[in-house]
């Protein structure tokens, strides 16, 4: 659905995992951008009704891009820059307190 702009296509890449899948992203990507570029339109299931949701506003307002990043739940993917070796997990339902 989403494609990189052509003038950015050759930039250096970082590697991260989404659940068990390994993907590459540009170092300036947010986690939400990386997810969308890798074809993950949905990155979580809602806390009460378990409905799939994905990145929407991309500016920290809608809280629909919540993911677990390196073990910490409910991170806003659009506000976190990707990092080499990062582990991103689809968040299914409520986060666990203390994680």
């Amino acid at each position, binding site marked *: 659905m989403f494609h990189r702009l052509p003038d950015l296509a050759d930039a250096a890449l970082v590697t991260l995992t989404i659940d068990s899948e390994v993907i590459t992203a540009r170092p300036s990507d947010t986690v939400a951008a990386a997810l969308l570029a890798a074809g993950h339109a949905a990155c979580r299931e809602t*806390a*009460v009704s378990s409905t799939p949701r994905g990145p929407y506003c991309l500016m920290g307002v809608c809280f629909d891009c919540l993911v677990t990043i390196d073990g910490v739940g*409910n991170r806003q993917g659009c506000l976190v820059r990707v990092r080499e070796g990062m582990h991103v997990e689809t968040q299914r*339902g*409520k*986060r*666990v*307190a*203390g*994680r």
Partner: protein
Amino acid sequence: MTEHDFAVIGGGLVGSAIAWGLAGAGKRVALLDEGDVAFRASRGNFALVWVQSKGLGMPEYARWTRASSDAWAGFAQELREETGIDVAHQRPGGFSLALSEDELVRRDTMLKRLHNQSDLPYEIMDRTRLQKMLPDIGPEVVGGAYCPLDGHANSPRLLRALHTALKQRGVAYLPEHGVDRIEHRGGVFVVHSGTRTVEAPRIVLTAGNGNRKLGEMVGLDVPVRPQRGQIVITEKAAPFLNYPVVTIRQTDEGGVMMGDSLEEAGFDDRIGLGVVGTIAERAVRMFPLLGSLNVVRTWAALRVMTQDGFPIYEESRSHPGAFVATCHSGVTLAAAHAKLLAPLIAADGLTDDFTAFSAKRFHVSSAA
């Protein structure tokens, strides 16, 4: 003959519960409500259905609270059958936790007196025993008090369920009807809201802190004042808190509510960082894992407080047919208001059991 048998003034939890009960008794009811300008405790409360600290000094109130707590499960069931809305009532028993021996002793003393006065069941637990029921307590928690009668509910959903049921029961809900004036003419109350009027032979004042002014219009002294409480709520988390604590509870949807402040701030429902910070700090000392959760909202609301903290239920002597019902526990007492109080008001009025709740108790000479 007027269109309505009753005009209930105030569409929060107290008014809605009473209107629901009146309609259930076959009465034709108009429910007058303010709009979004209302200081609505019904939307800002902590949603406990709480027994363990209520009524020391007034056994009738302790009994009334317990009666409501006992009626709550059936009330919730009725609302679910009538509206399809589950108000998430649970009664697993509840705790108050102590962060020092001194706090624990004071709690025990208060509960012992309440037990002696009103046979309140409770148990003081040490850390080891507490940990079996609340495994996530922090190292500073020295003990706590458990009362098996305590519980909680989803209070915004309770308000919605009541209003859904009111509509089904044919109650005329009139929003944006703040009341300016009430006249009593030939046995009929004429309630003025701007240029509009609603007439009924009987009225019930359930407008929270607004009852003070409304009461004056029908010969009822209603000495209530706002008392601010502040609340902090976290994002939704997987269930870990299986019992409500008087200052911390996890809602049915997972958010953790914290709040235990009391402030005399007049009609000011703004929050203050100092109080909110203290609430959060105490909560994290009780349950350290709360420190990992994000806070998503804070708010303040105004309790409806009498001098002794007990409710007022009374019929006007000078204006028979005008009742007032006011309390600071609209959630806990919702079942009693709907199932016990409303049928009395619908029939012959308050029984002698309610004499203790009259505002006359505030008029006893201080020298007496």
